[in-house]
């Protein structure tokens, strides 16, 4: 009998790998999660994929990060919805890893666990005054105007002065600047959160400074976004001509990247146009400030505990080899007064218990998506059945499309591991997850629940001539999903 059993088990092991039931759990329902799910479903006929997310709404930053005036970027949601509606795929929202479930429990229930929960924290500057009120990370501000339920009560004060300072010159910085400076009549027909639209309508911000510690050639923004912001009606662009001078090292950087060259040309044209145009006091202003790094934040005398300006140190660039240049302080300082500061200097991932983490880089150590438990010399020992994808794997860089290739790599590793019989034992999968969630009384939101939220938001949007009116509190979202 035991021999029969052994032979049966052995024959099961060598049966067609791709059609055996494979239970996969993906933590995080943003682009990384969905592209991974899509590729796993296509590569393995027997795969069942469960996507969990701590929010009741899926799609991650496509919903909560993409600016309201960029609706075409959100079209990706259609493809993701098709994946979620696949018969072998399920979405479970309002399930938080770390509090509703432990990573070890997930690994017991599923053959393959892919962590794709992105980066929900921020890099710090580590300078004095960073904890003054009025200083927010761009991530918080973006989540605020996009109606993320954790930040709907942020209430940034936009009425104290006419100046805002944004530290950083990436696309997030541009997004935030654009939302602050765009006429609210244009924003009123987007899916911006209602509380943000009201606050922006009453805002007194007329000048925004985008501060970068390096020059225009190194700015992290991309051409399309720059073109867009330079094309906004009634917006004065201010760039210092002296900031536009290029060094041989800069020329080298531009030669190697056509994107850099295009951006530099756009900024030069904008600076030239700004020089010839008349200063109109009624117009809003966007200042690109290069070669300045923040030294400390200034506290207001009338309002203790509140920011009143930024002290900036001028920088110059130094080559550090391989074409890279870094900013070095010169000891010259200047102040910019403002009432709100937004730090757009980069995101950082949040570690969880039981997960190896590289605190310096802010990512989970991995080799082509396989999580590494320890490295001795050249050999990395990887965790069985545990993988990462997206920002948690590569750091908070790239666009939505970058996740396509990231997912391809991770799923490639998963497939290789399955071929080698790494994921053989039988696992409970979805059924086990359901039992666990029931036991813990977790009110999970399935994809049909999201569709109810979606319909309700669109319905509310129709009344206001918006594509949707987002529900911004946990209570509202869960109530709509349960309807």
């Amino acid at each position, binding site marked *: 009998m035991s021999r029969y059993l052994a032979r049966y088990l052995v024959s099961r092991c060598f049966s067609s790998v791709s059609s055996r039931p494979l239970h996969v759990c993906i933590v995080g329902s943003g682009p990384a999660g969905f592209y991974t799910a899509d590729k796993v479903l296509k590569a393995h006929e027997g795969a069942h994929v469960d996507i969990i997310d701590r929010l009741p709404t899926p799609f991650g930053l496509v919903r909560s990060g993409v600016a309201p005036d960029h609706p075409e*970027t959100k079209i990706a949601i259609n493809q993701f919805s098709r994946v979620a509606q696949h018969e072998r795929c399920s979405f479970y929202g309002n399930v938080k890893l770390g509090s509703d479930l432990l990573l070890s429990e997930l690994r017991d229930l599923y053959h393959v666990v892919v962590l794709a929960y992105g980066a929900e924290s921020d890099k710090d500057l580590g300078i004095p005054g960073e904890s003054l009120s009025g200083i927010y990370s761009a991530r918080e501000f973006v989540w605020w105007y996009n109606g993320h339920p954790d930040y709907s009560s942020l209430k940034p004060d936009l009425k104290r002065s006419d100046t805002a300072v944004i530290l950083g010159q990436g696309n997030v910085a541009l997004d935030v600047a654009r939302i602050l400076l765009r006429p609210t009549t244009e924003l009123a027909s987007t899916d911006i959160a209602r509380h943000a639209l009201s606050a922006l309508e009453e805002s007194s911000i007329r000048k925004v400074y985008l501060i970068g510690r390096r020059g225009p050639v190194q700015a992290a923004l*991309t051409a399309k976004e720059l*073109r867009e912001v330079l094309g906004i*009606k009634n917006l004065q662009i201010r760039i210092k001509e002296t900031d536009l001078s290029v060094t041989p090292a800069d020329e080298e950087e531009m030669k190697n990247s056509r994107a850099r060259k295009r951006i530099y040309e756009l900024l030069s044209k904008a600076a030239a146009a700004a020089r010839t145009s008349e200063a109109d006091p009624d117009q809003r202003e966007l200042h690109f400030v290069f070669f300045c790094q923040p030294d400390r934040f200034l506290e207001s005398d009338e309002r203790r505990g509140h920011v009143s300006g930024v002290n900036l140190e001028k920088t110059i660039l130094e080559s550090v080899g391989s074409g890279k240049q870094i900013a070095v302080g010169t000891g010259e300082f200047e102040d910019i007064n403002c009432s709100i500061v937004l730090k757009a200097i980069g995101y950082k991932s949040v570690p969880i218990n039981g997960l190896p983490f590289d605190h310096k880089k802010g990512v989970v150590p991995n080799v082509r998506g396989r999580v590494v438990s320890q490295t001795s010399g050249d050999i990395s020992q990887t965790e069985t059945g545990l993988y990462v994808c997206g920002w948690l794997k590569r750091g908070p860089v790239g666009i939505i*499309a970058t996740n396509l290739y990231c997912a*391809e790599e991770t799923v490639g590793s998963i497939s290789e591991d399955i071929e080698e019989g790494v994921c053989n034992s039988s696992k409970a999968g979805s059924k086990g997850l359901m039992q666990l969630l029931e036991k813990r009384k977790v009110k999970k939101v399935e994809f049909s629940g999201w569709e109810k939220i979606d319909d309700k938001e669109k319905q509310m949007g*129709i009344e206001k*001539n*918006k*594509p949707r009116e987002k529900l911004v509190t946990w209570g509202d979202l869960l109530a709509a999903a349960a309807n």
Partner: protein
Amino acid sequence: MYIGIGLDWSDPVRYGCEKFVGTSKNKPEGFRILLVKERKKKSAEILRRRRFCLSSPRTNPKSSFTPFFHLQALLSSNLSKSLKLIPLGGAKIMVFHRLSRLGSRIVKELPRERHLPVFGMRILHRSYGQYLQSSPMLQRQTRSFKEALFSNNHKFCTSFSTTSEKGGKETEKINVIFVDKDGEEIHIKVPIGMNILEAAHENDIELEGACEGSLACSTCHVIVMDTEYYNKLEEPTDEENDMLDLAFGLTATSRLGCQVIAKPELDGVRLAIPSATRNFAVDGFVPKPH
């Protein structure tokens, strides 16, 4: 056969379309949707397309909104030849308006099988309710529709119908060869005027199109494997170049699939799909670094 003409690809329009046809997986046979937008040079290109396609150039705040011009172009061009407009039977045409109120009205009327097309203009901010007529199909000839359009009276609604395309001329097709991430070649035939992304999807080729042709992503990035064919393509616009800059595995002959329109000179073109795991040297093709 249904033709929805959206005046631009805003969410209310899409919502209307989705409600009507469901997801593209369930879309009824013969559904066509054309989008006409502000950019004049795009209209001619759009008019040659005959299948479900979403083409939405970025909103250009500087351009003035002239749907009138575009519908005029639509009717006087190839489209009217290929559709053979006749008064009765077969099909319905609906014009989805950008104003979501109208979109929702249209959506509400559709399930009742009342053909309720409405034409309106965004610049006239009034209630169009008064212009929605309840009689299902007005029998109008093309010419009278054209006349109505060309008149200065912008406030009207109308309907007309077309026959199915099957009676029309067969479109010419060109041969296109996709080289997928495993190096395998897939030969397909693409009708002239169709973009490569659509063609790939129709043939179940794994070419992602996250923004569905809106020039808002780079997931349909393809590499033209022969420089000769690359040179036959029109120069990429600034918008396409901006997206290409961010594409994974960019080469000197890279293009976005949604912007490559099939034309006779491209017969036999070979397109490689970039992949995270594949070495790009397929058949000796070595991409030049950008």
